[in-house]
């Protein structure tokens, strides 16, 4: 009895909301299980090249120890026979690794990668079906167990299991990157709108005008003058395009700052009078506008006119799904801005930016995290829907959605429908369960 009381007492003294929320979360068994499952999926995604690879992880071939799966694709090795004479060159990218005769070998669990086309098992070979194999003597035989396509193949002989494993990378990345973009936009806009409202951000009139003019000029120099540079960079590769895009953003911000600095010269009389900046109205109208277009329609339309690339799809999903996060952040900031500690920070003379991001934001994040977790699930769903329709994602790219799409044209191939579908379903359920548990843990009032 005494013990219990003591522990309760220390609990109250060292009460930390994070610890409390975490203990609440841990009590939720399905959520805990989902968390483990998510960690498993992440591990699969990280180690995908070593879980599914047509090259062995380790091999001893003609006296030479090699690690083909870890090596670069373009590597070439010279092979010598027992007497030390040069025999042949082993080219990593074109060798048929399965037919070599090794002294010792360790294969990856799935002996195919997502792009490898098994020409003897084309046209939807089922997992339990008659799979063919060409051995080192050139005879077509029944497939040995370690080279079996455990989950079958698709129409051009790609292994389904390998596709699923490599597809998990795309699914997780889509959730991470698109929601990363969405949270940055949503949290910043929501925080500004909620903290300042329509009346609390004041600026000298001239500064307000010059900021708007600066935005216009910034857009002109950042995007208008640089559109060919941007186009060429995106044509070369997405990464160089993103670098150029960052430079453009830098230009825009630089121009805005320049204009604001210039406006200081004009601070007198009528121009100096402070006016309200209706930042909340701007953000709210933007949210309403985006919300009144069906999201899938918007994403499909934009994806179909830009270059096909999974990265661009992620960016588009991110740019269109920040509204929910912004609304939650805004609502939280409306509540927080009138609390004593924020007012204390302001009366101590801290800058607004510091008050928002250092004092207020950490307390506003709890509901936002929940919304982000739900958002990840829906981003994955949208991406697989796009791949399913064949929009946005390059045609030769293997994603869960594009695998399902093959099932559409061939209904007999149940394995092409069932396994990717289950993969998508599990990932989405995992995120949804975690999000629900987070909501219950962070806000006991909402508990259902």
């Amino acid at each position, binding site marked *: 009895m005494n013990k219990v009381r003591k522990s309760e007492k220390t609990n109250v003294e060292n009460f930390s909301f994070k610890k409390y929320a975490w203990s609440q979360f841990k009590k939720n068994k399905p959520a805990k299980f989902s968390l483990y499952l998510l960690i498993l999926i992440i591990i699969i995604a990280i180690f995908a090249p070593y879980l599914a690879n047509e090259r062995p992880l380790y091999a001893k071939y003609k006296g030479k120890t090699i690690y083909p799966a870890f090596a670069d694709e373009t590597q070439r090795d010279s092979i010598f026979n027992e007497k030390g004479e040069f025999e042949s060159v082993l080219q990593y990218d074109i060798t048929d690794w399965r037919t070599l005769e090794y002294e010792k070998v360790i294969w990856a669990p799935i002996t195919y990668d997502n792009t490898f086309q098994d020409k003897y098992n084309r046209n939807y070979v089922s997992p339990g079906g008659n799979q063919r194999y060409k051995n080192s003597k050139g005879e077509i035989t029944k497939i040995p167990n370690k080279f079996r396509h455990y989950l079958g193949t698709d129409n051009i002989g790609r292994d389904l299991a390998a596709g699923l494993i490599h597809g998990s990378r795309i699914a997780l990345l889509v959730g991470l990157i698109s929601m990363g973009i969405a949270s940055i936009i949503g949290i910043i806009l929501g925080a500004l709108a909620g903290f300042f409202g329509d009346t609390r951000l004041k600026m000298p009139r001239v500064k307000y005008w010059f900021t708007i003019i600066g935005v216009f000029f910034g857009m002109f120099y950042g995007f208008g*003058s640089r559109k060919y540079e941007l186009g060429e960079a995106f044509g070369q590769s997405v990464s160089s395009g993103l670098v150029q895009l960052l430079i453009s953003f830098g230009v825009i911000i630089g121009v805005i700052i320049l204009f604001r600095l210039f406006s200081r010269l004009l601070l007198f009389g009528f121009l100096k009078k402070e006016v309200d900046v209706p930042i909340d109205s701007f953000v709210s109208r933007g949210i309403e*506008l985006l919300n009144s277009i069906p999201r899938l329609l918007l994403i499909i339309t934009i994806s179909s*006119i830009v270059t096909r690339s999974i990265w661009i799809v992620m960016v588009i999903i991110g740019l269109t799904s920040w509204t929910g996060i912004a609304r939650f952040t805004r609502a939280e900031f409306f509540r927080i801005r009138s609390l004593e500690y924020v007012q204390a920070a302001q009366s101590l003379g801290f800058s607004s930016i510091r008050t928002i991001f250092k004092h207020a934001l950490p307390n506003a994040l709890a509901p936002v995290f929940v919304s982000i977790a739900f958002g990840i699930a829906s981003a994955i769903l949208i991406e697989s829907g796009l791949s399913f329709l064949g*929009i946005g994602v390059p045609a030769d790219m293997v994603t869960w959605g594009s695998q399902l799409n093959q099932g559409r044209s061939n*209904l007999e191939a149940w394995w092409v429908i069932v396994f990717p579908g289950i993969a*998508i*379903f599990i990932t989405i359920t995992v995120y*949804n369960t975690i999000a629900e548990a987070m909501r219950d843990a962070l806000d006991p009032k909402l508990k259902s």
Partner: protein
Amino acid sequence: MLKYTVKRILTMIPMLIGISLLAFIISINAPVDPIEKLTRSAESEGEAGSSSVATKIQKQEWRKKLGLDLPIFYFSISNFATTDTLYKVQDRDHQKNLSKLTHETGNWNAVSNYFNSLIKLERKYEKIDIKELYKQDSSLDINVLNEAKNQFGSTVKNLLANSDSRIINNGLSTLYSLINNNDFLTPLKPHVNKVKKSKNFLEANKTKWKTYIPSLNWYGFKNQYHTWLFGNGNERKGLIRGDFGFSYRDQKKVEDKIWEKIEVSFKFSLISILIAYLVSIPLGIFSAYKKDSTADRTISVVLFVLYAMPSFFVGLLLLFAFANPDTYSFFPVGGLKDPTTWNPDWKWWHWDAIEHTIPYLILPIITYTYSSFAFLSRIMRIGMIDVINQDYIRTARAKGLSEKTVILKHALRNSLLPIITVFAAIFPMAIGGSIIIEVIFSIPGIGVEILNSLTGGDYPMIITIFTISGFLTMVGYLVSDLLYAVADPRISYK
């Protein structure tokens, strides 16, 4: 209430303009040139006569008919170096090349000079008639002549579409060597010289600084957007009078194409939402009433699982299981009717027609329904649990009312509130959410139409669909807000 409704409807107008502008911005950045698409499809039918002059005239006519010869918007923002009449250039590749050249050199006059000399060269080149030459001197080898001519032509075309200085120089030297090797091309030499001269002039007179000065060009009311919105006073009536313009693909009126498709999709979503409500409200009530019982837990888990199933996965599974000769072939694979057995005289209320259509509807409606049904039941359950714990329910029970009256009369009305919010989603779902399901079951609805328009570069259709779906979404929000007030007398809008 009335005042509130009117106010809400009025605020829709700027929103709609915003949506149509967004759609417009997307459509002008589209990579597909609709005119090229139209002429190509006509050429493949073999009616354009494949003469380049004829196609040019035809392109011009189409441009005029579709209103593409007008500037895009009321104004445009460009730089000081660029001309404001670039939109008048017909060929999209030429237009792009011109704007890129201007961007690089900053000297519009020199660029247009260079370009005009190139076009003159192309015209002169087109006048060369190989057959005529052959008649005059039959010792010539007609194949060699043709090859040289074709090479010359493709180089000129290449020059017209490229702004890279190296490619231009290479092209010019190819032209010179072709002229030197083939006597019949000699008359073109002064024109090539002119091109080279203007090119050199262009290189020597770069005014790059001009591209750093923004300029605003005002085009007035004769522009594509204005025509689309208000009409041009003649055959185009404009959106506000119910004219959505012409489809680029077949030049039919957009509204003729769109309404029947929307009707199909709308019927589907309406039926499925009705079914979803009819199933989920009792289920949610039951689940909440028996909270934490085995039945409730099972229902909750099943609903949670259903909720996370992607619709395309469920649709394919249903097709695999019930429309597949290998398993059970209960239902047709897709479409809405079988043209071989469908009698065109049937109206939709005829029993034969209903009997014919129902098998086609079952699988799509299940796919449409299950996800919203799972979502609605969960919301209903949460709402009901919330209400049951309130004091007035305890009071009702304490009064000795029967459990049935308490739940169905006292609790139900208030627990409906959250579920009403979802009603707003019906209208946008009729357009946006149905794309995937319509593709799976090949239903000729608006979703499939959107996809076809996107791949065909049919932007009037897309802008229209965007605007209509935006309008319907806002109507949905308004309706659900008004329903709130009906369900809960405490809420009033003043």
